[in-house]
């Protein structure tokens, strides 16, 4: 199950403590980690009293220089923004697995892509975060494995954004073996940290510095997948598991000689803008597909001047099949 893959990946990646609060569809991550803790030394967990406690507990452990993580979804993700905004302000390398459930309040426990905006820009900040959107079980493992290293290297809160489908999906995954995160204490003797300021100039300077640093390293962090985009007249844009369905649809459409390709941002923050510009440069039609009402489209429009109006295909809180994508694209080709 995807959630078990995530717990295994965190363990292999060198994570030491998980702080969690049960919420469907992410609960099995905490369950699996608790099982690991009962069998291994040197790792621990806390089932906290709520998501705020889980988030701030994780921050406390990271401040002590110990790689820690959490997992949540939906309303839990909303509550945890309290902690994530502080992690963003103090540059605490937290790692959070977000298994998106239906959006709008409690909603369904099943699936959506409606936590994109929240995960990228939640809190009263500027989104100095790293967000990976995975598309399959192997990527759940690989990007979790990577997330801890990247978080501690760049010191931006890092997120593994998946969904309820991936959480419960079964399949085979290749594990990489274990490694150690290069982590060191952040809060040590004579270090006084704060996120509260008296003057506008003080916080303005900090935000400006964070922005400059984020812009400087973003090219090293950004990841994307361009599939069959060479010579494609229609470019489909999707992320996460919708991109997996879209990829299958591209194969079906290509068999019908329709010149179509997929551009998939893997990092939603920082958004792979240069790669998107390259992939979309010669597109005659650009279609965005997502299980939300334009949250991915807005990320794209914020970063890229589109050569042609966007054709929007939104299904908030519902999944896509390759067949329906095939049918829709056939109509416009």
């Amino acid at each position, binding site marked *: 199950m995807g959630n078990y893959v995530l717990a295994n990946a965190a363990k292999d990646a060198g994570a030491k403590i998980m*702080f969690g609060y049960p919420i469907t569809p992410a609960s099995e991550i905490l369950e699996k980690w608790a099982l690991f803790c009962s069998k291994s030394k040197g790792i621990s967990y*806390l089932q906290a009293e709520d998501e705020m406690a889980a988030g701030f*507990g994780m921050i406390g452990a990271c401040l002590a220089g110990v790689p820690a993580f959490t997992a949540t979804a939906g309303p839990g993700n909303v509550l945890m923004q309290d902690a994530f905004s502080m992690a963003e302000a103090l540059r605490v390398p937290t790692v959070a697995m977000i298994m998106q459930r239906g959006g709008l309040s409690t909603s369904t426990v099943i699936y959506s892509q409606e936590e994109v905006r929240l995960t990228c820009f939640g809190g009263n900040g500027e989104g100095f975060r790293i967000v990976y959107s995975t598309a399959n079980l192997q990527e759940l493992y690989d990007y979790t494995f990577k997330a801890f290293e990247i978080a501690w290297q760049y010191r931006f809160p890092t997120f593994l954004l998946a969904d309820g489908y991936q959480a419960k999906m079964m399949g085979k995954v290749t594990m990489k073996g274990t490694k150690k995160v290069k982590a060191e204490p952040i809060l040590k003797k004579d270090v*006084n940290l*704060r996120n509260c300021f008296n003057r506008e100039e003080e916080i303005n300077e900090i935000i400006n510095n964070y922005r400059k640093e984020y812009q400087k390293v973003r090219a090293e962090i950004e990841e994307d997948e361009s599939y069959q985009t060479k010579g494609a007249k229609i470019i489909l844009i999707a992320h996460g598991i919708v991109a997996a369905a879209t990829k299958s649809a591209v194969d079906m459409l290509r068999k019908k000689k329709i010149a179509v390709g997929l551009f998939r941002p893997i990092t939603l923050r920082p958004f792979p803008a240069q790669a998107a510009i390259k992939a979309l440069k010669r597109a005659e039609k650009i279609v965005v597909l997502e299980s939300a009402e334009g949250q991915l489209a807005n990320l794209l429009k914020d970063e890229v001047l589109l050569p042609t109006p966007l054709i929007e295909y939104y299904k908030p809180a519902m999944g896509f099949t390759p067949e329906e994508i095939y049918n829709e694209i056939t109509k416009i080709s």
Partner: protein
Amino acid sequence: MKSPKFPDCFKIESKPNKFCPGCGHSIALNMLGQVIDEMGMADKTVFMVDIGCSLLAWDFFDLATTQTHHGRTIPTAVGFKMANPEKIVIAYVGDGGAYAIGLQHTITAAMRNNPITTIVINNTLYAMTGGQLAPTTVENEITTTTPTGKKKQQVGRTFHGPEILSWITDKNAYLARGSSNHPLELKKYLKKAIETQLKGNFSLVESLSACPTNWRTNAPETIKRMEELARIFSLGELT
């Protein structure tokens, strides 16, 4: 006249401190500083402060210090302690942080017997934001959100933190209430609280604390109010 010596763990560059004249915070912090010096624990101490007036202590000491969010200091302290049990972790919070917005964390950390020390500064109102009603506001007290006086028929009784926690704490935990009117007694409680943490148990010390700015009291009235509070919130050790 010889000026009194600051505790060694004080950060001299941040003095004079940022608290209002007559505020009880600096007395509690002074007592804590003396305990840290006497126990020789400056290198091992991690000090965490909440939102509200307690945040003004973010650079009070030459200690590893972080400010957190409102009510979230206790879980941050719990997380740090889990990651590094060798450290002595202190959560410094107001009555709003401990008994309102962060109450679930206070109760749960006490219930789990997390080996951290919480210091709650109880001045019976929200001081930083302008003197609004707190869970600790006493009957008939005028605050900016109870302009005609607090009435229990409207907003309930007065919250007694250590007494309520005593229902759920481990037998080896430590709970006490001191007062900035009795600094040496408070210091004794703080020392016992740290010793309790060193033995692996939860401790919480509440300190009644004067807030002349928001109480709108002069010096004699402030002292009188503190004496009245000590009758409502009894001083001493609970365990």
